[in-house]
């Protein structure tokens, strides 16, 4: 578009004459850390993507209670499971409306067609919609949904049945995850007819607390409250704006100036000043994550239990928590965080003991020490804010018992690829829980099936695996808890990895913000959040 100077001058003159004021209302601005890759949650895996779509625009059949790993009914009012644990029947909520936007006007309420479309899209590559908008649904694949769901059918307009191939005790939790957000089949049909199926990733339509209004890449995402939201008490704002602010220091300055009211991911170094600021409040919670040192048990001499025990007891975890996590971490003992149900409270770490570690090495026949590689992640993760520093500190600890560790690092994609292939001796890695189920820790990171995948220790212990596989097939939580507790005892005896720490999650906000709850899954959601 071209504008002559005269037109511009005229526009300026009219502007000066008019001088309109901006509308206010109850608007909350959230300083987010980055731009989402898109608005179709099924395609993505990171919280930056989920916060901007799943947590605002959408609902799921089952959902996590705000600030908790407990599941509550979502768009499914209730569900039942068959005796063999293979068939789930969902009774859907009535009277739920999809958002009316400039690009879509729904003609009907949410019903079984939407639930069926949502699940089928994840499992059926030949669905016409998937052919028109090809995409990878990697999270659903990761959680095994694409292979485990064998059929999804509509029994009546408000009842849906899902049949599984194998029992999956965490199935309901999996459906509560962001990637399983419920899409409108009617909207998808409209897009498909218009030949614009991919717009599902650009202009989202859901049933959630906020209606998508606009997105300016790397600048802002705007939402308006959903006036007819079915959980009335969970929408207390008129507008919600994500101010995309990639630098943590700048986010903090904006928060101080009240240019935003909640900010994501503060720098640990800023926390003290934030806590001392009378205008700010800093919410915190033990993170649902864990960083650890994985030992490749297929490599000599790490195949020997005594060697792993010696390396484990030579690590000064307290010093790591102070230096790497800058005090914002909790010492980890088990292969899961203490907030995960089935956490075995009786387990204790071996005390830091250099002399004993040396004697264990001598017993294993490597009393004169040995050389290994210690891989350091090239990226910062919630469970490990500085892997290089952690590796350097462990290198120094191991040197005291005669183990010479050579620190190695690769580009992140390459790091993962090579370590899954088992090229490392020892490595820094970790995990953030997906769905609040113990299997998401023990099965995913230590099960025999995960060797060559996320089991970076390449450790396959029959006793441990039998317990985890059995627990996965049960639906009684008490029974499962017993089995998982036993599995953690086996883990502690065999030391396939050394748990280091769970980082604490901090969310700084203005004092005027009410009702904010930290998601254990590292998401940022504004259910029930208001402004004084």
């Amino acid at each position, binding site marked *: 578009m071209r504008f002559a100077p005269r037109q511009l001058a005229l526009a300026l003159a009219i502007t000066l004459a008019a001088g309109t004021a901006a509308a206010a209302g109850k608007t909350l601005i959230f300083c987010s850390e980055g731009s989402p890759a898109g608005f179709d949650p099924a395609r993505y895996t990171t919280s930056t993507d989920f916060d901007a779509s799943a947590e605002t625009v959408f609902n799921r059949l089952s959902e996590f209670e705000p600030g908790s790993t407990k599941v509550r009914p979502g768009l499914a009012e209730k569900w039942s499971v068959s005796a063999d644990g293979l068939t789930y029947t969902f009774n859907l909520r009535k009277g739920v409306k999809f958002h009316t936007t400039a690009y879509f006007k729904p003609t009907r309420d949410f019903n079984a067609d939407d639930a069926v479309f949502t699940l089928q899209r994840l499992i059926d590559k030949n669905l016409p919609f998937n052919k028109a908008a090809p995409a990878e649904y990697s999270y659903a694949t990761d959680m095994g949904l694409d292979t485990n769901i064998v059929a999804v059918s509509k029994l009546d307009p408000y009842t849906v049945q899902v049949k599984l191939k194998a029992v999956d005790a965490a199935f309901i939790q999996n459906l509560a995850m962001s990637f399983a957000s419920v899409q409108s089949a009617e909207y998808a049909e409209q897009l498909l007819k218009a030949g614009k199926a991919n717009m599902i990733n650009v202009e989202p339509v859901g049933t959630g607390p906020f209606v998508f209004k606009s997105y300016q890449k790397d600048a802002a995402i705007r939402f308006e409250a959903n006036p007819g939201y079915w959980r009335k008490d969970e929408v207390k704002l008129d507008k919600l704006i994500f101010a995309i602010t990639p630098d943590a220091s700048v986010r903090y300055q904006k928060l101080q*100036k009240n240019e935003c009211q909640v900010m994501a991911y503060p720098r640990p170094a800023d926390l003290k000043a934030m806590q001392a600021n009378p205008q700010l409040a800093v919410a915190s919670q033990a993170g649902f994550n864990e960083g650890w040192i994985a030992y490749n048990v297929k490599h000599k001499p790490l195949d020997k239990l005594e060697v792993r025990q010696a390396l484990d007891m030579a690590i000064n975890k307290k010093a790591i928590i102070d230096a790497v996590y800058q005090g914002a971490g909790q010492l980890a003992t088990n292969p899961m965080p203490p907030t995960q149900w089935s956490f075995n409270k009786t387990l204790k770490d071996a005390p830091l003991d250099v002399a004993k570690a040396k004697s264990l090495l001598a017993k294993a026949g490597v009393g004169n020490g040995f050389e290994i590689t210690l891989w350091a992640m090239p990226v910062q993760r919630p469970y490990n804010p500085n892997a290089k520093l952690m590796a350097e500190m462990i290198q120094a600890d191991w040197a005291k018992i005669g183990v010479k560790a050579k620190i190695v690092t690769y*580009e992140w994609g*390459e790091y993962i690829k090579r370590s899954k292939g088992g090229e490392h001796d020892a490595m820094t890695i970790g995990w953030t829980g997906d769905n609040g189920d113990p299997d998401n820790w023990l099965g995913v990171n230590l099960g025999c099936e995960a060797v060559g995948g996320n089991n970076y220790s390449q450790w396959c212990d029959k006793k441990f695996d039998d317990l985890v596989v059995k627990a996965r097939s049960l639906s009684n939580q008490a029974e499962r808890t017993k089995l998982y507790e036993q599995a953690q005892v086996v883990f502690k005896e065999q030391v396939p990895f050394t748990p280091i720490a769970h980082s604490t999650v901090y969310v700084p906000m203005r004092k005027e913000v009410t009702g904010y709850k930290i998601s254990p899954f590292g998401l940022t959601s504004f259910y029930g959040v208001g402004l004084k």
Partner: protein
Amino acid sequence: MFTFILRRLAVVIPTFLGITVLAFALIHLIPGDPVLVMVGERKLDPEFYKAAMTRLGLDQPLYLQYWHYLTGMLHGNLGESIVTHEPVLSEFLKLFPATLELSICAMIFATVFGLAAGVIAATRRGTVLDHGVMGAALTGYSMPIFWWGLILIIVFSVNLGWTPVSGRIDLEFDIAPRTGLMLIDTLLAHDLDAFKSAVMHLILPSIVLGTIPLAVIARMTRSAMLEVLREDYIRTARAKGLSPVRIVLVHALRNALMPVVTVIGLQVGTMLAGAVLTETIFSWPGIGKWLIDSISRRDYPVVQGGILLVATLIILVNLLVDVLYGVINPRIRHAR
């Protein structure tokens, strides 16, 4: 003049082809691929991986991928982003006005203050003022952009409260993008408050982005002015009794401008490189941040297309400078 432009264009074509090869090769040389980066530490099913690579055309030999990229480009198709599935050109066009607006303001700041500083230093040669101005220019040139940006934010935004911290406009204003240039869009929306907000948001990023070019322009102006001021015709002008201001501004500066124009042209490249950092500090939604994000996500089409578009811009600006230079100085135009 026409042959002169043709000669310049003949150099541009191989440069352009070289850039396509470089952009393609560099991004493919970095380890990792878009699917690996997307999955991260999560489980990666080999079949899923294979299917994804096939769908993205990344299972083909590199020379074939390059060929598709080159032929697509010649047909005006730069491909679509692997991550957002949007055409690269349309993403570029959405973000480029922000970078353009910031670069123009930074360049105006750098040129005005750079020329003034250079002229002052040259006319007061050897004095405290000269040393002070040139010392400040050297400091500006050596300043790490990230640090400089944060210092300005802390002083002017947080402590004094004069300017906003970051962004292009206060978020209470929802200005629909028409030209993409916020100053113009706010005027077209007849919203004075929004216009003021856009101006205030431009001040700090323009200073940060313009600091290095300002230092370069100041130093170049000073040395060019010193040379011109020694010329005989300046002495003649002085002897004729012309006012010192007229001698400096009309007779000396005009002739000293020639090398300065070249330097200003060359600063466009520096500015686009500096924009990457400035845009990150000030959350400025331009192409610098877009390219950085695409590299970390291994979004090949965006990196290749983005680099190509930016390089084309720099080539065009340099071509324009060459042509301008030819206009100003006929000796260049006729040189073989």
